[in-house]
């Protein structure tokens, strides 16, 4: 489904991703763990081109972006990839000048050029799916963080993505609002959505992930099923990481 081949990324000469080879199969749920600065966000952002890789390739369902390609070619292929990926950000990034419903249908109107009434139908159904049918005309500023993030999930789902990328979707939320967002994500997982999730919610990772990918200093250090990873990580670095977590 999605894979990276020898992917690397440098910012001003500093390599923050080094030779990443990762495959995610359809309906698989991969949770990315790792210390701050290990490159988790950068990896997700290289998948949909918010960052452009400096080496290697990314491939989604046969659409391939190679770092060696011409800039134009890369951009247009990434645009194709983006139509098939949904991304959810830590800070929600809802459009403040648009209502919940307008946020969800924006790309249907502009990217898919869908007639408005049809887009509205889809949008209303998606808002219902994330439990916010009653909030469709509310502006983001009138919604709680948890509600905003659920709208953002609905917005990402609108394009019927093949894979959803989550970058710390609950890190900016008050603790009591984390649950409602994780519930929506659990629901998605149950429905067979392919997902890559960066999160610090270890319980969620343990329960929902099919695979844990542990990163440190720009490389994948360890990959394992969650039970194995949390019971007995194979590497010293993963052990240290988990110990530090449980100290808090």
């Amino acid at each position, binding site marked *: 489904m999605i894979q990276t081949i020898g992917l690397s990324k440098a910012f001003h000469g500093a390599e923050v991703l080094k030779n990443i080879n990762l495959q995610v199969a359809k309906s698989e749920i991969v949770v990315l763990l790792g210390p701050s600065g290990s490159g988790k966000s950068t990896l997700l952002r290289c998948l*949909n*081109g*918010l960052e452009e890789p400096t080496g290697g390739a990314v491939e989604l369902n046969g659409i391939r972006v190679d770092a060696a390609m011409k800039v134009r070619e890369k951009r247009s292929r990434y*645009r194709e990839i*983006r*139509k098939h*990926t*949904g*991304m959810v*950000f830590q*800070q929600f*990034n*809802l*459009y*403040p*000048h648009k209502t919940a419903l307008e946020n969800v249908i*924006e*790309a249907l109107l*502009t*990217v898919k050029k869908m007639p408005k009434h049809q887009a509205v139908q889809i949008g209303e159904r998606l808002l219902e799916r994330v439990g916010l049918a009653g909030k469709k005309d509310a*502006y983001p*500023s009138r919604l709680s963080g948890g509600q905003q993030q659920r709208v*953002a999930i609905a*917005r*990402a789902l*609108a*394009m019927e993505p093949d894979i959803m990328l989550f970058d710390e979707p609950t890190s900016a939320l008050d603790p009591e609002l984390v649950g409602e967002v994780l519930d929506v994500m659990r629901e998605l997982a149950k429905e067979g959505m392919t997902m890559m999730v960066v999160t610090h919610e270890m319980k969620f990772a343990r329960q929902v992930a099919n695979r844990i990918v542990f990163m440190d200093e720009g490389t994948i250090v360890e990959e394992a099923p969650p039970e194995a990873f949390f019971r007995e990580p194979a590497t010293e670095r993963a052990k240290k990481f988990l110990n530090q977590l449980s100290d808090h």
Partner: protein
Amino acid sequence: MSLVLENGFFLLKGAYYTLLITIVSILFGLIIGVVVALARLKGNAPLRWLARTYVSIIRGTPTLVQIIIVYYGLVDYGITLGPLTAAYVALSINVGAYLSETVRGAILSIPRGQTEAAYATGMTPWQTYRRIVLPQAARVAIAPMGNTFIGMLKETSLVSVITVTELLRSAQLLIAQYYVNMPFYLGIAVMYWVMSTVFAAILEAIEKRLSRAY
């Protein structure tokens, strides 16, 4: 005082020109402002340099000098503009530079996450600009722009030096005729004040309307 009222029609005509010059300059200034802001943000190196230099020159020289150059200076090169046209040209170019700074700042103030969210759904840079960035930037820009507009209303008095009979020059002509100063000057001061106040009220209404959505 009765002299002012007797010549009310003449003064109102001056006020009409003041308003006309203000509105025309603002409209053209807005177009210039947006184009120059986009040139500075998105243009290639020579274009960016050109836009930056334009803004720097306009901001670094007195408006009065700019007006005089357009009206009296260009004549040397065979470009003869009527006083009113010269006023439109000079003031549009002037206010365009200031507005471009406001527009640029407003665009830059929109968080990167907004663009990224739009890109992530497959929107093109242009779609993102038009549907996500510019509408938000307009809301940010409207208040400072309002100040520029009101400033413009007052700056129009400068074009009296190139014989445009706007409000100030209307008063000066009457003064030359009747040999009294203060009533006319006070009269037009009141008229400027009324126009600025009405202008401000209109702008405030627009601002309210724009930000109602949030």
